[in-house]
């Protein structure tokens, strides 16, 4: 028998109405990087929560270093050398890095806090593992990637041997992801054992030694990463073949649907404008993608375009009408649908039922209300129709509370609502964020179907692959300016990357006018 540091045997965890983990066995070798792969709602986080003591499994046993253990809470887990970096960091924003790291295990000498001892240890750890942090910086002042490094040092400071990462790359920029993967590799080489939850296949191929795949609460199998391929893993995860490239026919573009002219938007964070003098058109029957690294003005531009924030200068025409100062409702009536960046903040009312959410943009239309009274039978029928057509899954159909649905199905609900609403322009902002490959494929197909139906699609994306595969035309935004207009068929990811990082630029005006 091999030398396992963690053995989780036949773990079963049930929630009301659902078996989240069904007889799952997972073994972690000492010093390996072990990926846990699965779709949203496959039970990955539940399994890790069982290991970390946040949930108690109904059946099964956990063996650490050959001894059966009982983990009732995170403190037990810590005592056994298990540490976890959560997807949403657990840091005190107004404390310094050092204070956060020692929180709960403060070194004390003669009854007083002894920070110098802690500082020495932190600097030593950060040098040993290549984790650059400034112990005296406030958490609220440092970047997300840096905050994550603080979480990692927190685990190392507690001398944890088993490190759990819950979707660690979801919040990071491409450069930060590269750094993180290097750090994780380094940790494994130093003898730490790493479990990391993900649904990004590229990261598994690049980093992991072995990978366990979960699907709908069941363990599909554990494979050696060097003996497998991306395609095979995705098939294990989703249960069918997934196409990574999107098939689309060539389309003739039609009239200009959206015309943006010299738009400038102020920033809320700093004195400079977030969006500077941006102009472009989107025509019927094309997908125009606004590509760029996060924080280059995309969010501000979309807020101005959709009416959530004011536009400072310039004009925007939708279907020939000036919408620069129009209310959100007017824009919606004129023909704008909007799949928002943050589906929990803007896209859904999580405490409303699915059917109530499906009419969020339309409840005021005569179809769904009469004299101010909502026509609940019509709403129900409409919701049932959409649920059927878009295959939105939930525990109780139209009356499921949106909060109880999985991320992929929440996104499907938003998609269904925005696509079924009368529109000429579909604004989709990072529509695949946080989704698994199956759901991503579905979203991409829907976007292409909108284009094929002769609608204009304006896509904002941070994912290079998505930008290259889905769009008909790429606009690159860098520090609030459009620095390039590219044809995905005539460019490649390297070139796109250069534009996105500001190393290369063309104004795009010439080719634009020639159209």
């Amino acid at each position, binding site marked *: 028998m091999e030398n396992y540091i963690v053995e989780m045997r036949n773990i079963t965890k049930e929630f*009301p*109405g659902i078996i989240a983990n069904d007889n799952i066995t997972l073994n972690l070798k000492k010093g390996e990087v072990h990926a846990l792969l699965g779709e949203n709602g496959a039970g990955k986080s539940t399994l890790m929560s069982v290991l970390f003591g946040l949930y108690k499994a109904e059946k099964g046993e956990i063996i650490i270093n050959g001894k059966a253990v009982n983990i009732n809470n995170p403190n037990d887990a810590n005592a056994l050398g298990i540490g976890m970096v959560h997807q949403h960091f657990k840091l005190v924003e107004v404390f310094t890095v050092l204070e956060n790291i020692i929180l709960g295990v403060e070194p004390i000498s003669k009854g007083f806090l002894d920070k110098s001892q802690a500082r020495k240890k932190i600097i030593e750890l950060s040098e040993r593992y290549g984790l650059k942090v400034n112990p005296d910086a406030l958490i609220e002042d440092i970047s997300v990637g840096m905050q994550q490094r603080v979480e990692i040092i927190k685990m190392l400071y507690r001398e944890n041997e088993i490190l759990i990462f819950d979707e660690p790359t979801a919040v990071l920029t491409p450069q930060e992801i590269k750094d993180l993967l290097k750090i994780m590799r380094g940790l494994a080489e130093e003898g730490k054992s790493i479990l990391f939850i993900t649904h990004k296949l590229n990261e598994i191929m690049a980093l992991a030694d072995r990978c366990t795949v979960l699907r709908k609460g069941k363990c599909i199998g554990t494979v050696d990463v060097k003996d497998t391929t991306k395609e095979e893993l995705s098939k294990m995860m989703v249960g069918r073949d997934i196409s990574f490239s999107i098939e689309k026919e060539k389309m003739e573009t039609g009239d200009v649907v959206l015309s943006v002219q010299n738009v400038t938007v102020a920033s809320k964070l700093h004195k400079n404008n977030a969006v500077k003098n941006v102009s472009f058109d989107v025509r019927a029957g094309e997908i125009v993608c606004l590509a760029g690294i996060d924080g280059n003005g995309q969010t501000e531009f979309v807020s101005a375009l959709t009416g959530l924030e004011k536009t400072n200068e310039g004009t925007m025409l939708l279907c020939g009408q000036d919408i620069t100062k129009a209310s*959100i409702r007017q824009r919606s009536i004129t023909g704008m649908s909007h799949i928002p960046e943050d589906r929990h903040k803007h896209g859904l009312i999580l405490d409303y039922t699915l*059917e109530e959410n499906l009419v969020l943009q339309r409840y005021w239309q005569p179809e769904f209300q009469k004299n101010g009274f*909502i026509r609940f039978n019509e709403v129900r029928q409409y919701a049932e129709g959409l649920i059927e057509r878009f295959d939105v899954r939930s*525990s109780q159909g139209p*009356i499921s509370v949106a909060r109880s649905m*999985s991320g992929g199905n929440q996104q499907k609900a938003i998609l269904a609502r925005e696509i079924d609403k009368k529109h000429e322009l579909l604004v989709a902002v990072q529509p695949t964020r946080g989704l698994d490959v199956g759901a991503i494929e579905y979203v991409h197909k829907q976007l292409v179907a909108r284009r094929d139906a002769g609608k204009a699609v304006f896509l904002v994306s941070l994912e290079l692959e998505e930008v290259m595969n889905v769009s008909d035309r790429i606009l690159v935004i860098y520090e609030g300016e459009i620095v390039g207009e590219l044809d995905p068929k005539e460019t490649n990811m390297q070139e796109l990357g250069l534009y996105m990082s500001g190393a290369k630029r063309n104004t795009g005006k010439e080719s634009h006018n020639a159209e």
Partner: protein
Amino acid sequence: MQNKNSSKRQFRFNAHSLTHSKGFSSFSSALMAILLGLIFGFIIMIIAAPGNAISGFSYVVFGGLSRIGDVFYFATPILMTGLAVGFAFKMGLFNIGASGQYTMGMYFALYVGFMWDLPGELHWIVAIIAGMVGGMLFGLIPGIFKALLNVNEVITSIMFNYIGMYLVDMLIQGNAIMYSSPTSRTRYLPINAKIPSLGIQGSNVNLGIILAVLIGIILYIVLQKTTFGYELKATGFNKYASDYAGMRGKRNIILTMAIAGGLAGLGGAFFILAPTAITGSSMTYEPINIIAANGFNGIAVALLGHSHPIGIIFSSIFVSHIQRGGTLTSLVGYKPEIIDVVIAVIIYFSAFAMIMNAALSGFVKNRLLKKNEASKDSEPDIKEAE
């Protein structure tokens, strides 16, 4: 409610959707709170005076039954202020200014009652409407501050409690038609200005309670069935998503605060325009610079009723019931303050009981869910969902 609709349409889901509804869990947690509060209250009574605890406690629990008219009369104002707090809370606004709105409503009603000469039946009706307008005014102003200048409604409405109270006390003391210096109270109202009595012997109970219950039911319909209610709750749950959906947030804030103020103002009118048990007399107000307790009791009532209009109807009657019972404990030597302690404990436990309730109703739901699953397979998605 949609849940009820569905149980009508799909009869076999009846129990299932009932236990899943929010109402079920609110109701069971309110009951739990009441139970725990009463037990704790009993313990306090034992500590205070062991010998009389049982007779005192039975006054608390059953005493109100012998004074059912008064129970309903004193329930009226806290029902209205409870609705004023609960309704605003549905939109995510904490209307702590119900006292000021209540006081203004009372003053406007009194003013019309004393100063206006109106024919017969019309008099008390106009006085009630005036009360509503007075309350609305004091809800509207914090609403406008909140909507247009983003000033926290808690701060403005607390300040308006003081402004309203001192203003009203000043105006009443300066008006000889309304105020009688020897008694240092307002005079008895003209006969036509009084809301018709319900004729229960020895109590002040009047048509106000019936109107208040009706208003509660209307609010329930507004919240559950109308587009305005849909917008209001949506804004309360998630302000950003309601903006995204193009709802007019500012207008809705102002409207909600005005309605909430109007409700509290009606509470003041219903309370003060009451005939008393003695023929020819009426309720009077004593301007002694104290903020109306009925406003704050409204917060307690709204919490216990989980801000649900129907829940608030019952919680106001319950609170009034034990308050009336509590006054009777003085017959066996208890201070009437003891009942305030018991009420405070009940409210305290209503937050605590939410946790207890999650465990209890979760258990009931599970049992029903499993039965449902076993008996049919028309809902194959249950296991696949998250």
